[in-house]
């Protein structure tokens, strides 16, 4: 992939602050689209846009900040970060604050936050650090321990219950194991075990509302005014958008509030209704740019820790995109996953941008060293 003019022009400056120009440009493009869509779906409320702008500002700041840290630092803090994360999750389990029917929050007096968000970064860092102690392909023993390390926080998060996040967190760990050369035989075995685990999840771990989501996913028409309503309305919004869409601010499904969660989880439906298939292809291309750039950065990274971490961060980002789009278009059950960089909301945005900060650190520091 060639560097764009933008990066070459500003090369010295961007490189000095450890920023990957191509990645930054793609992120900014998506953020802009996000703001446009939030403005439309939020009933043309400038306040909403301003608050999102502030969050994006905070996110970008964090990204730039994290991009400055040497890889060694990440490598060193991984294990502690992971342990602190686990402790916090335990804390949530015992002292957590209940919100929206789930116990996800930890109240530290001054601020409340979700430790599961920390885990989204701590998990790939920990597994990448653990695997990269030895050469890859990782040994069966390492893979096994790796799975245990993945499993502990996953269970803790799933217990809150927060199925969406627990899946994303476990995915970020498993991606590391996959990239580290886990044998296909083991992958097949895991797949098989997963198949067996599903019924156990259904009967022992999943709450009623989660089961309902799965049922609704399998047959949304079974409850058109209840939990099936979201997915039916979402499909109507997307389908009625057609090839060229109804136009910005013209989406009737969203403007007339037939769509639920319009500026958060279901923002993609709003976008699809207003910008149509053409808009969707544009959006997917931008996401693909980010993902491919991420894999490229991973592949060119200097050491295994960097490679594994960068690859995992990128693939997890893809999972976000895929799960969200799949869920609003009826391919996947409804799990509360926002569309990264587009959906309105703060917590996941910060984690996401932190991930991109690490990705940029890996990207630019590799180049500095290789020079």
């Amino acid at each position: 992939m060639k560097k764009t003019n933008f990066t070459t022009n500003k090369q010295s400056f961007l490189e000095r602050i450890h920023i990957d120009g191509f990645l930054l440009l793609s992120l900014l493009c998506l953020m802009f689209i996000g703001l446009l869509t939030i403005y439309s779906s939020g009933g043309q409320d400038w306040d909403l846009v301003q608050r999102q702008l502030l969050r994006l500002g905070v996110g970008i700041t964090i990204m730039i900040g994290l991009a400055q840290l040497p890889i060694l630092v990440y490598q060193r803090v991984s294990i502690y970060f992971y342990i602190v994360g686990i402790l916090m999750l335990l804390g949530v389990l015992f002292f957590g604050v209940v919100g929206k029917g789930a116990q996800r929050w930890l109240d530290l007096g001054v601020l409340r936050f979700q430790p599961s968000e920390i885990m989204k970064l701590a998990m790939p860092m920990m597994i990448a650090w653990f695997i990269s102690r030895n050469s890859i392909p990782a040994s069966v023993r390492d893979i096994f321990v790796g799975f245990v390390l993945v499993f502990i926080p996953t269970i803790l998060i799933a217990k809150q219950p927060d199925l969406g996040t627990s899946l994303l967190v476990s995915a970020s760990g498993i991606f590391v194991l996959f990239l580290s050369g886990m044998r296909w035989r083991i992958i097949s075995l895991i797949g098989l075990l997963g198949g067996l685990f599903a019924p156990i999840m259904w009967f022992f771990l999943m709450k009623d509302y989660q089961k309902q989501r799965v049922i609704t996913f399998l047959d949304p028409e079974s409850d058109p005014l209840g939990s099936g309503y979201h997915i039916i309305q979402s499909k109507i919004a997307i389908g009625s958008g057609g090839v060229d869409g109804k136009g910005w601010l013209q989406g009737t499904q969203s403007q007339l509030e037939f769509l639920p969660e319009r500026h958060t989880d279901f923002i993609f439906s709003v976008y699809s209704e207003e910008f149509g298939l053409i808009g969707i292809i544009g959006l997917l291309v931008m996401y693909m740019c980010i993902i491919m750039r991420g894999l490229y950065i991973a592949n060119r990274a200097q050491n295994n820790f960097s490679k594994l971490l960068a690859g995992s961060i990128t693939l997890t980002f893809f999972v976000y995109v895929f799960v969200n789009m799949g869920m609003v278009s009826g391919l996947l059950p409804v799990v509360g996953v926002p569309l990264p960089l587009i959906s309105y909301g703060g917590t996941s945005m910060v984690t996401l941008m932190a991930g991109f900060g690490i990705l940029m650190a890996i990207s630019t520091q590799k180049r500095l060293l290789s020079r």
Partner: protein
Amino acid sequence: MAKARQTIRDHSAEANLFARRAFFSAIFVFGLMSLLLINLYDLQVNKHLEYQTQSNGNRIKVLPVAPNRGLIYDRNGVILAENKPVFSLEIIPEEVDNLEQTLAQLTELMAITPDEIARFEKDKLRQRRFKPVSIRRQLTHEEVALFSANQHRFPGIDIKARLSRYYPFKDTLTHMLGYVSRINKRDLAKLKDQGQEANYAATHDIGKQGVEKFHESKLHGRVGYQQVEVNNKGRIIRVLDFEPPVPGKDIVLNIDIKLQQKAQQEMAGRRGSVIITDVKTGGVLALYSSPSYDPNLFVHGISQTEYSKLLNSRYSPLLNRATQGLYPPASLIKPHLALIGLEEGVITTETEIQDRGFFKLRNVAHIWRDWKRQGHGTVDVTKAIEVSCDTFYYELAYKLGIDTIHERMGEFGFGNFTGLDLYEESRAILPSRGWKRATFNESWYIGDTISVGIGQGYWNATPIQIANSLNILVNRGKRFTPTLLKGYLIDGSVENVAIEQKPPLVINNEENWDIVLDALYGTVNRENGTARTAFRKTSYVSAGKTGTAQLFTVAQDEEYDEENVHEYLRDNAMYIGYAPFDNPQISMAVAIENAGGGSSHAAPLARNVMDYYFDELRPAREMALAQKNAAKIKVIGISSTPSSHQSSP
């Protein structure tokens, strides 16, 4: 450190491994993204139309818009039924911050009762929060003014106006006009049967009685539609399309409100009815049933107590006596019977009887008395009508027999609906052998026929039947259907409906009409006529017939009440008449319950009304018309503003 060395050793193999996995990941990502895109393509391209339809179905709602009900005018353009805005105070719960406090403030201002609050709370639960709920209906003007002045204190509360029926003449026209009231379940079922359900989708009231009910289809109009865009809660965002409703037709009745008011005034304090018709068309000029009530009570829902009061009143105000009151027609049918006798050849103008005050059949012990104990002496057919000799008719009926009487009286409309445009009409009873067999399972006796000869016995009739039968006589067999509807008011001018006529009653000898009508003239104008006293020195020449019916009561399931036995056993006073004699214009039928003799009670009342018509109303109308015509001539070419009343065409 061994591990570190190993790492360096295998660096390129490791890099290759990672590259392969990264490449595989990229394929994986592409694959899933393609899946996503294929699915989205399916939704947006293949199923686009289906989802577009659903999307429109979501947002577009079609709302019916009620048409304005047609107005009702009298023949001179006086409005009899109008649509007036009524004001109600409505609260939009969503827009009120503190409902309890607001209601308390409102109570302070308008004295809202706990009942009203209870009803409001009940209605509120059935509505969406942004839909208005009334707290007080039918605000007075003072209340409207009071609230308007304080509106700023009550955000979310508003005065709403709706058109509602109003009858300015209140109890004057009740039985004829009827009234509208809220559509109930029964009405709804009926509308469904008629396929009119959609047409009434937005309509609040429907005609329940009288003209309002009979001419409902013309008065109602056609529903309009508003295509609106709504949001997920059904709130209207904007109007996309509007198909205006077609208002109901404004109808003009044959009624002359002045005449109707005069009839009401004369009937004050009495029970009975007055019907005045236009002899030449059958048009009903006045139709008053007494006692009456205010139909406006029913428009907004009458209270249970008030309704019970009307329903249980021993004077039965809800009954339309003119069309449902069943009275023995008594002597009023003597002219008809005389005509039948002449036609059948049973009597001639030469026929004379010696009336000794009673009629007796051979071998029958029973005697039928004349109303005049000593009898009328020598009586021919003319005198028999003029003095209302019963004996003559006992004998005539005996000779005609019930079968002939039944058949030929049926031709005068007895025992059947007249076709008046009201649903509240009774067929009454014109007895026959078959009828008696079916009703009492008894044979017909000769004695039964004798009573029928003087309009008593099993025979009863409604005043409208009697009025109709008089018109057939006066018109020499032409049978106009009595009608209330005169025409429609279209763009300021009246378009008359065709005059309804049944095939005429043809008789063998046209002179027989003259004989009977002459006798009616004699009743009023000749020395021994029963209506002579009542009509002495009128400015016009009229003819008529008195009747005095011995009574039970009107056919209502009234309870036998000892206190009232006296009053209710008194005779019914009746009169039919028309004028002017040589060029008949109006005819009248008067029935007054338990008043006494027809010549002393009904005839004077009829005279008062006729005097009013010929001495006051008609000259005034003619003068007004003349002035208007004169004015028209003067200001020809200059647009003149019409007076408040429309001139009759």
